[in-house]
Structures are given as structure tokens and as C-alpha cells.
């Protein structure tokens, strides 16, 4: 049995995407900047991909900038909006405490350059924020609001169109890191008043190493990568055309199947949550309703996440954890801490992000495996012994 339940980390590249990419390596391999036919064919394909991406997101082709992935798009969006604001004396940025590190670390860099960052606290357990929280935090000198569309760890989906409306009313740039949402939720940047949006191909069965930044016309981008005049001079480097074509095809495929995929995943997610909830002293992280159809995240008291992952791997299940041991730092996931999980409990977290091809029997196998591994690890845990003997109080 092999079950890949880490689709929030990366996904299998779809056959359609792979097939669509091959011609751009084998025959139409010219540089889109070259004048001869090899290049011009590539240029046509590049602009065709841009139009199709724009069509899906509901924007103009010229508002799409191809990047190396979500992290680069986040960096460029945030730095651009910050520097635009600074020119007008606006050096305040609003974000949340549960953003991806691509956002948080960029904000830390800006803080060192003199920007003031407000990280909105999230609601315990659900991790939600409201548009009125954003509105209340807005100031005269706010240059940017950046709030993720959906959380990569706990799956919580944020009220993006409400936040977009607030930002529009106050004439503040609104960026969303939509890496976990694009291809999984229907998004229209204009209807949702999104000024900038980051996406990454490999989260929706596209290839690695390619992404895009949607940037509303009129917002002047700052270059992160200097060099040639590609991407209207805003992102140097020969375009990754096979990747861009693969991403476009993968996104079209994912978007065409959103309803079907969601209908398939929702009952299976509910079954998985119900099954894991039966494990004593466990608790679901993230919101129950406003949640990605693929995401399930639990904390299990008395155990540590890395050993849980290794034993699940032995059973053929690929998953992820927010424990310190898996993050390579001493602290567990900042997201779990932000939603109010204490260290002891956050170390025992498990994220399962299921894909389209998961079946009901896979779900039952996951439940059974997690339950037996958790029990096994608890039986060798001194913390669990203390909890059971009443020497330590249960948190969950």
C-alpha cells in the first residue's frame, strides 16, 4: 500500500502537463527573445500561456508575470508594494501570524529596513481572521495588506473578497499568497478585489520551478532579479517555457475539475476527520468549514511528530508534521503556536493533504494506521504515562 497524502508539499505532475511540456524541450526550444522562427514560435507559445493564465484568474494577460515559483512571487509582490508605499511616506504593512515563511521572512527583511509590520493574531484553533480585523488595523500610512488565501498547514481559507473590499475602500494594495488555493478553489482577482496574487505550479499538478505573480495594472513592480528585459523588464532570465506551458495546462485541467474534485474530497475529508477524532486526546487544527477540501491536520497528545511520520512511512503513508524535529528548528510550527497550541501538543501534529485519486479504502487505511502508530508511540512515551497516571494534566 502506497498513499501519498502530502499534496500540500507538492503534487504529482499530471500526464497532460508533461505531454504539453515535451515539445518545448524537443522541438520548440528557441529562446522567446530571438528573432528567428525557433524563437518566435516560442514567443507565441509564451504569450498564449499568459493569455490562458489570465483568462483563468480573470485578469489581463499583461498583468501576469512568470516567476520561478510562489516564493519569488511573494517576495516580489511584497517588496514592490512596500517600496511604492515608501515613496509616499507609507511604511506600514498588515499581515497575519500564520503566513508562509516566504511572506513572513520578507516582512522581517522589510522591518529591518524601517517598515512597521502588524501581524494580526488569528482566532484560536480555527486560525481565522476577519475583514473587520484588517479594517481596524489600517492606518493612514498603510502601504500593503498581505493575507494568504488558504493556509498551507491547517487548510483554513481566509475571507479574501471581504478583505479585498476593505482594502479597495481604503485604497490600500492587497496581496494574497494563493499558493495553496489556486487550482483548488475558483478565484477571480477582479471580482475579489485582489491587487496582487502569488501562485505556484507544483501545487496543482504542474511542474516544479515555475509560478506566477498577478499584479494589477498600475502597480509598478520592483525587480528582484536583474538582467535582461524579459517579462516587460520586471523579471530577468530566459523564460522557463516548458514549465510555463506545463503550469498553464495543469491549471486549466485543475480548474475544469474543481467541482468534481471537491465533491469527491469533501466526504472523504469528513470521514478522515471523524475517524481521527476517535483517537483519544486528539484535536483538529484549523476551521471545520472554511477549509481546503484536501486538508486534515490533527494534534495528538503525548507523542512527537517525526516518529509518527517515520512509522507511517513504514506503512506506506506519506504525510507531514509541524514538530520541531521535522522543521529543523527548536520550535514547532509557527502556525500551530499562533492558533494557540502549546509546544508539547504542537510537536505531536500530523498534516494529511489528500489528492484527487484517494479512495475510501485509502482513508480507512490511514485512520487505522494513524490510530495504531499513535497508540504504539504513546505506550513508550513517558509523557503519556504521566498523563494517564494523573501526574500531568491532559491539554487535549
Amino acid at each position, binding site marked *: 500500500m502506497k498513499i501519498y497524502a502530502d499534496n500540500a508539499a507538492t503534487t504529482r505532475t499530471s500526464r497532460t502537463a508533461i505531454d504539453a511540456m515535451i515539445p518545448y524541450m524537443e522541438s520548440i526550444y528557441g529562446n522567446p527573445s530571438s528573432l528567428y522562427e525557433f524563437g518566435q514560435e516560442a514567443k507565441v507559445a509564451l504569450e498564449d500561456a499568459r493569455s490562458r493564465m489570465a483568462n483563468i484568474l480573470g485578469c489581463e494577460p499583461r498583468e501576469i508575470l512568470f516567476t520561478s515559483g510562489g516564493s519569488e512571487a511573494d517576495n516580489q509582490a511584497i517588496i514592490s508594494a512596500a517600496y511604492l508605499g515608501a515613496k509616499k511616506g507609507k511604511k506600514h504593512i498588515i499581515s497575519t501570524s500564520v503566513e508562509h515563511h516566504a511572506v513572513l521572512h520578507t516582512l522581517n527583511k522589510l522591518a529591518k529596513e524601517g517598515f512597521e509590520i502588524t501581524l494580526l493574531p488569528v482566532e484560536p484553533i480555527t486560525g481565522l481572521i476577519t475583514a473587520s480585523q484588517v479594517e481596524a488595523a489600517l492606518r493612514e500610512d498603510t502601504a500593503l495588506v498581505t493575507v494568504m488565501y488558504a493556509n498551507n498547514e491547517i487548510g483554513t481559507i481566509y475571507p479574501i473578497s471581504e478583505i479585498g473590499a476593505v482594502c479597495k475602500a481604503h485604497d490600500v494594495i492587497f496581496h494574497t499568497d494563493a499558493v495553496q488555493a489556486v487550482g483548488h478553489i475558483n478565484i477571480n482577482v477582479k471580482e475579489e478585489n485582489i491587487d496582487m496574487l502569488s501562485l505556484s505550479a507544483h501545487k496543482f499538478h504542474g511542474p516544479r520551478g515555475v509560478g506566477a505573480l498577478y499584479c494589477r495594472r498600475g502597480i509598478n513592480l520592483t525587480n528582484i532579479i536583474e538582467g535582461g528585459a524579459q517579462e516587460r523588464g520586471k523579471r530577468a532570465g530566459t523564460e522557463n517555457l516548458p514549465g510555463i506551458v506545463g503550469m498553464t495546462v495543469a491549471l486549466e485541467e485543475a480548474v475544469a475539475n474543481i467541482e468534481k474534485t471537491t465533491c469527491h474530497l469533501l466526504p472523504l475529508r469528513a470521514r478522515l476527520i471523524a475517524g481521527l477524532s476517535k483517537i483519544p486526546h486528539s484535536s483538529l487544527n484549523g476551521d471545520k468549514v472554511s477549509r481546503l477540501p484536501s486538508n486534515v491536520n490533527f494534534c495528538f497528545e503525548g507523542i512527537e511528530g517525526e*516518529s509518527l511520520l517515520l512509522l507511517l512511512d513504514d506503512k506506506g503513508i506519506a504525510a507531514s508534521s509541524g*514538530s520541531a*524535529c521535522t522543521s529543523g528548528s527548536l520550535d514547532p510550527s509557527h502556525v500551530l503556536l499562533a492558533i494557540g497550541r502549546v*509546544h508539547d501538543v504542537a510537536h505531536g501534529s500530523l498534516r494529511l493533504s489528500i489528492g484527487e485519486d484517494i479512495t475510501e479504502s485509502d482513508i480507512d487505511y490511514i485512520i487505522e494506521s494513524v490510530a495504531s502508530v499513535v497508540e504504539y508511540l504513546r505506550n513508550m512515551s*513517558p509523557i*503519556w504515562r504521566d498523563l494517564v497516571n494523573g501526574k500531568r494534566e491532559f491539554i487535549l
Partner: protein
Amino acid sequence: MALYSDKVMDHFRNPRNVGAIEDADAIGEVGNAKCGDIMKIYLKIENDIIVDVKFETFGCGSAIASSSMATELIKGKPLSEALNLTNKAVTEALDGLPAHKIHCSVLAEQAIKSALKDYYTRNNIEYDHDLIPDDVECAHCHD
């Protein structure tokens, strides 16, 4: 998984000496839940020989493997030998640990020392304070 050696994975998957000794002659516990690892060592001692040893560990794969290996290295051995067990010996016996997991072997060494300290204290036996620091603690948490 390439993260760990086969030896580590073997001791993680099939840990030796797991459990508790109800009438232990000594118990040592180090680490804390906040850091994500706690090791507890139970010893049964007769005529200065460790006749039985068990462990309980809350922690990652290398923490469990380090505990298992450390108990194997001291089982049946005289106290003097257990007292000289180093984290390096544990790491080597496991065919190495990734750099950021070395602290797991340190914790195993300290857990054993903490148990030995308990034994000496219970029995009013003088011991070498250089080998067993007064404050046996999980060093990496306090860096």
C-alpha cells in the same frame, strides 16, 4: 528514508528494552516536552551491575533509537562502565546521526547519568561530580 542510517532505523523500528521497571533501583529523566524530547531510564542494579534496563522516550526517531542503543550498551555492564558511556559512543554505535540530531545522543548519555545519580543518591554513595554534573539537563534547550 536516507535521513538516518540503517542502524538508527532498526533501533527506531524495533527498539530494545522499551518499557518501565516497576521496582526500579534507579530512575533518570531528562529533557522536556517543550523541546519535543523526554527520555526516562529505569535501572535494576545488583552488585554494582546493571542487570536490567528499560526506557521510555517521547521524541523523534533518533531520540528513540539513541535511547534504545544506550540501553543496549549498558545492559549487563558494571556501573563504572555505564558512568563512562559517552554520547559519542552512542552515535558511533548507531553508525552516525545527522548533525542536528546529535543532541538526541547527548540526551541518552544524560538520561543514564541522571539514573546513576538517582541510584547513588538513594544509597548515599559518593560519586564523581565531574562525570555526573549536578544539573543534568537537556543542553540544547538552553543554548
